């Protein structure tokens, strides 16, 4: 069931949470709403579920306008960041809740609940109370509860936000597999771009209540529509008007007319990846991502002078964006000439 939102507006007092937001989520897709806190992504998700009422605009599920439908009739599965487990019910009762509301008979409920508990690997814990589960188990229970009623769409609001890094990684892999098996149209909200790219096929980047860009992870990474998307989807350095990914920064020891001089401030080794932090003569702090081998070849030390050469840079002038490959350096060509170092010869 495809979901579309058309011209959604929502304010909380003076704060405009959604500003004319329109999105299109194809049937069976796994889409991430990505953005910083306060960007409106959770409000949008909650509006799709009917947990927030829009001030303007429409929500369509499978082509039907559900804007006036109360939550309980929208047939959405919703998973909350803090699980929203029914504390006075066992795992079994939690998962079976929606079925009981739908007046299924006991034997059918039992079959369905146990099937789902197997799916989320919680069989054997059916009699426990939520307080006796770990965070990851509680979230899987919440997921089973949402899936039990075979919702048209599955909505997840920062589902892994309250979990520690390891559990988080396991769960998102697991969610991807689950989606591959079930093909239920899924939207999940996250502020973690890595998580969004890892799990989702399609991403919608939001900021200040608006959609900045939507597309596949590759689209957004390779062709960001603006500065915000470029800096939110992946790391970025700013050199004057140009934006350069840290892995597109070449570090060399010999200057030429395309390099900028920088002082190596810190070298951080993160396994195979090495992070070299430099400060340029105008005080701009940048970092380059190198491999361990590159670092060893260069024999870089903290406190020494090195030269930076952007391999690929991007600049956003007005509404259009331009790619510049290899050639452009901001140095010298900028107005005032103080944006970069004059290339040392």
């Amino acid at each position, binding site marked *: 069931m495809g979901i579309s939102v058309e011209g959604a507006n929502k304010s909380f007092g003076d704060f405009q949470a959604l500003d004319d937001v329109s999105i299109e989520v194809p049937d069976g897709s796994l889409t991430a709403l990505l953005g910083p806190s306060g960007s409106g992504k959770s409000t949008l998700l909650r509006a799709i579920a009917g*947990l927030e009422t829009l001030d303007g605009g429409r929500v369509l599920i499978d082509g039907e306008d559900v804007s006036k439908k109360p939550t309980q009739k929208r047939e959405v599965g919703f998973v909350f960041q803090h699980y*929203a487990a*029914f504390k006075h019910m066992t795992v079994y009762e939690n998962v079976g809740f929606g079925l009981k*509301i739908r007046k299924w008979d006991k034997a059918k409920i039992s079959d369905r609940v146990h099937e789902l508990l197997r799916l989320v690997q919680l069989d054997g814990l059916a009699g426990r109370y939520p307080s006796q589960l770990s965070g990851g188990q509680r979230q899987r229970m919440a997921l089973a509860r949402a899936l039990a*009623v075979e919702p048209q769409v599955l909505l997840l609001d920062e589902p892994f936000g309250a979990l520690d890094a390891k559990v988080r990684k396991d769960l998102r892999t697991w969610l991807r597999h689950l989606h591959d098996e079930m093909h239920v149209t899924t939207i999940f909200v996250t502020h973690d771009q890595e998580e969004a790219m890892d799990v989702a096929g399609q991403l919608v980047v939001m900021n200040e209540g608006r959609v900045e860009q939507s597309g596949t992870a590759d689209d957004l990474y390779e062709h960001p529509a603006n500065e915000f998307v470029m800096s939110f989807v992946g790391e970025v350095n700013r050199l004057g008007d140009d934006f350069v990914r840290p892995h597109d920064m070449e570090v060399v020891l010999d200057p030429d007319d395309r390099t900028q001089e920088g002082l190596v401030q810190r070298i951080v080794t993160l396994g195979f990846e090495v992070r070299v932090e430099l400060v340029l003569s105008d005080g701009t702090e940048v970092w380059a991502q190198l491999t361990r081998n590159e670092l060893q070849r260069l024999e870089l030390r903290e406190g020494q002078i090195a030269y930076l050469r952007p391999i690929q840079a991007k600049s956003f002038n007005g509404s259009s964006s331009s790619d510049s490959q290899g050639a452009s350096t901001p140095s010298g060509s900028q107005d005032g000439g103080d944006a970069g170092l004059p290339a040392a010869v």
Partner: protein
Amino acid sequence: MSSASARSHVGSGAVSRWSLRILGLGFLALLLAAPLVIIFTETFKDGISPPLDAITSENGLHALKLSLLMVAIAVPLNTIFGVVCAILLVRHKWKGNAVIDAVINLPFALSPIVIGLALYLLYSTNGGWFGPTLAEAGIEVLFSVPGMVLASIFVSLPFVVRETVPVLQEIGTEQEQAASTLGANGWQTFWRITLPSIRWGVAYGVVLTTARVLGEFGAVTIVSGSISGETETLPIFVQKQFDAFNEPGAYGASLLLALLALMTLLAMNLLKRKEDA
């Protein structure tokens, strides 16, 4: 040396802890336990029959029944009102909430005797606001059960609200929202999610309400007219026995009141333990 100093530190901690305990227990013993103990011993000073006779006398039994009737009417009404009111206060924010919040505390702030007088003035057949109209319709409020019920409701009104509001705030709305996404309507959500989540707050409120209704004297005395065998509740019965120098009877009825309150508390604890097990 460090262990020695640590030990002396622990020692002084234990000393101060024990002196605090003794102080606290002593305070409780003097102010709460001693009066209860003396009621107990005084009641049975001349054996079990004088207090038993007083309680099982016609007036005594009637007073007991009347007190239980007050509980049976006032407690359910105040429980329903309290839960509804708490939900309104916590879940539906509007400007009138501050006023409601303040007004609900009024029965705590006002002396029961003032409440009694206010009701008396309101329902007096002789110039009260509602009294003459109700009298024409054949409804007698003052010096009969309706007035006493009103007084009991008034004085015990805030307990369920006050005990439920913080619990409602603490549980938040996420569980209710989750229930609605699972297809539950408002009524189903209330019965299956909200009420079970706040039940201990409500239960505690019910216990306090019951105890208050059982023990209420001031307001009820004024509106009841204290007619023996007709509008006499247990506390009024106690006072009358005391005035008539029938001390064993007064103490016996007092003890009965205390036992009823204790049973309410025990009932809640038993329920809670069964729940936790």
